[in-house]
């Protein structure tokens, strides 16, 4: 009996956390989404979401998140693969991870300096005769900085998945007649898919609701679900519409979680028999 009550005691911090920071905010967001700007109960916000303005915004948000995830993945997978083959792999990994500990805002400001009209990149362009180019407030700079921010989060799960892969499986595949490329396609990639999925999860979902980078680097030229929410709450003061977009954002997150969910098969013990 006592054992049970102590167990319940341990659950209090968790329960309180979930209640205060997960359940209550979601309930509030759903609640606010049901009122219009004048404080009247309505479903008009939901109807408005399906208008062309918001659908376009959603699509563009998904498109940018997709591009950011794609470029992050294209850089991270080979990097992670290469890192697992190096001698001091944990050190090299750490060097990639460390920048992610520095405040996001600071790093973003650094890029304003780097990409700015008088920044080093433009100075270089000028020196080689291309001349000063508008880098800040473009799609390119937005995606570049976002990819830079997300790469550590993408590399880590992929690195872990590749590192856990039993090297004998690669030998076995080669032994059975597979070329290096076939081995990658039929053995390495399927067995590290869980890492890739985790990487996509931690990149794509936050990328959907980016707003700080959008503001500072893309200068409002790129509008995502995140900036739209901020706009509704802080500028238009339409909490109802802001909440509605947030509800959809949460919905999208769940759908993505479902698609990138981990299957237990193989799982943590990928390729290890014992």
């Amino acid at each position, binding site marked *: 009996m006592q054992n049970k009550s102590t167990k319940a005691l341990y659950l209090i911090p968790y329960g309180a956390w979930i209640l205060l920071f997960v359940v209550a905010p979601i309930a509030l967001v759903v609640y606010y989404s049901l009122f219009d700007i004048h404080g009247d109960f309505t479903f008009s916000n939901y109807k408005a979401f399906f208008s062309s303005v918001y659908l376009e915004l959603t699509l563009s948000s998904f498109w940018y998140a997709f591009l950011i995830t794609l470029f992050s993945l294209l850089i991270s997978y080979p990097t992670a693969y290469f890192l697992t083959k190096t001698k001091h792999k944990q050190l090299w990994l750490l060097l990639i991870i460390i920048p992610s500990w520095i405040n996001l805002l600071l790093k973003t400001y650094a890029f304003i300096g780097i990409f700015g009209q008088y920044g080093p990149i433009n100075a270089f362009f000028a020196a080689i005769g291309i001349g000063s180019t508008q880098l800040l407030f473009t799609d390119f700079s937005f995606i570049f900085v976002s990819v830079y921010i997300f790469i550590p989060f993408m590399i880590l799960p992929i690195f872990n998945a590749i590192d856990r892969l039993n090297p004998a499986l690669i030998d076995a595949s080669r032994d059975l007649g597979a070329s290096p490329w076939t081995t990658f396609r039929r053995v390495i990639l399927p067995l590290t898919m869980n890492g890739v999925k985790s990487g996509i999860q931690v990149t794509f979902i936050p990328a959907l609701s980016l707003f700080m980078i959008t503001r500072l680097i893309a200068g409002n030229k790129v509008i995502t679900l995140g900036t739209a929410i901020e706009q509704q709450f802080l500028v238009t003061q339409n909490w109802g519409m802001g909440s509605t977009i947030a509800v959809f954002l949460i919905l999208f997150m769940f759908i993505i979680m479902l698609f990138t969910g981990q299957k237990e098969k193989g799982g943590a013990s*990928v390729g290890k028999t014992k």
Partner: protein
Amino acid sequence: MTQQPIIRFDNVSKRYNDDTTVLSNISFEMERGKFYTLLGPSGCGKTTILRLIAGFIEPSSGEIQFNGKKINEVPPNERQVNTVFQDYALFPHLNVFENVAFGLRIKKIKQAEVKRRVEEALRFVNLQGYENREISEMSGGQRQRVAIARAIVNDPEIILLDEPLSALDLKLRTEMQYELRELQQRLGKTFIFVTHDQEEALAMSDEIFVMNAGEIVQSGTPIDIYDEPINRFVADFIGESNIVDGVMIRDHLVRFAGKEFECVDAGLDTNEKIEVVIRPEDLEITSPERGKLIVTVDTQLFRGVHYELSTYDRDGNEWLVHSTRKAQVGDEIGLDFDPEAIHVMRLNESEEDFDRRLESYEVPDHAE
């Protein structure tokens, strides 16, 4: 017709980072259709030989030939060799059928043919009906069989087995020894088996290569190696042995443990210092008066099929005895043995000299 060796190593060496030598100047030949075992303690280079044949690594120097052709740089996927790995290395994301079919799928063989061959391979290892199981649902022994099926289904010329039985329990291991030997004889393929377990090696092989520190110390049939170990290392590694220092008085007469004994060895120098091996099961317990050696029983262990006695003679040499007869601890007993039980080993003799010497006195012996 002289048969071409299927595998030939010609002065093959393997070094890592230019300072650690794993294999030094290894040369040997293997014939088609035989069961070979590379036997030695861990780190002796036996797995390196296997990986060289499989193509996972390249030799630092020397030449490896397969059917008379140099294959030093041929990648593993282009060799007619398949491996059964130590930890099986089955693909966890594929079921039993797809694991076995892996090699056939790479070769783009038609589905009907794949199905037929996979089923045949699974029948060979007694796993019919397990096609749709996941690897995680299979026991250690079953995984072992899947790994063997995955290798034989490709119809390779050579099957390499890297300590495949080490993860199994004793009973299953013994069972698999029989099965592997039988499988090899039914398939008629060349098997190259790596192990550190001398019992496995003796039970299954046509020929054993005993290895130590990157070199092949002795090669021969299990009986040759057991009965005529070339040196202390082999005698100690294969089976239990009593090894004592001695002196060769002349042909067929050796002196050790303070006495002279008749033996069958010959061709050594007079008064040459040698080592003598007598296997524990060749020593027979008798009365002190009739024994060639007189020893005191120190300890006695019951081993099931026999008693294992640790005894000491008056010079302090230990003599291990395997006997079905019991003795009393502390008793003085006699040990009797035949002249054939004495195996004389020259110090630092090369395998070629050793073989030549054995032939020189063994052939007339048999002719008598």
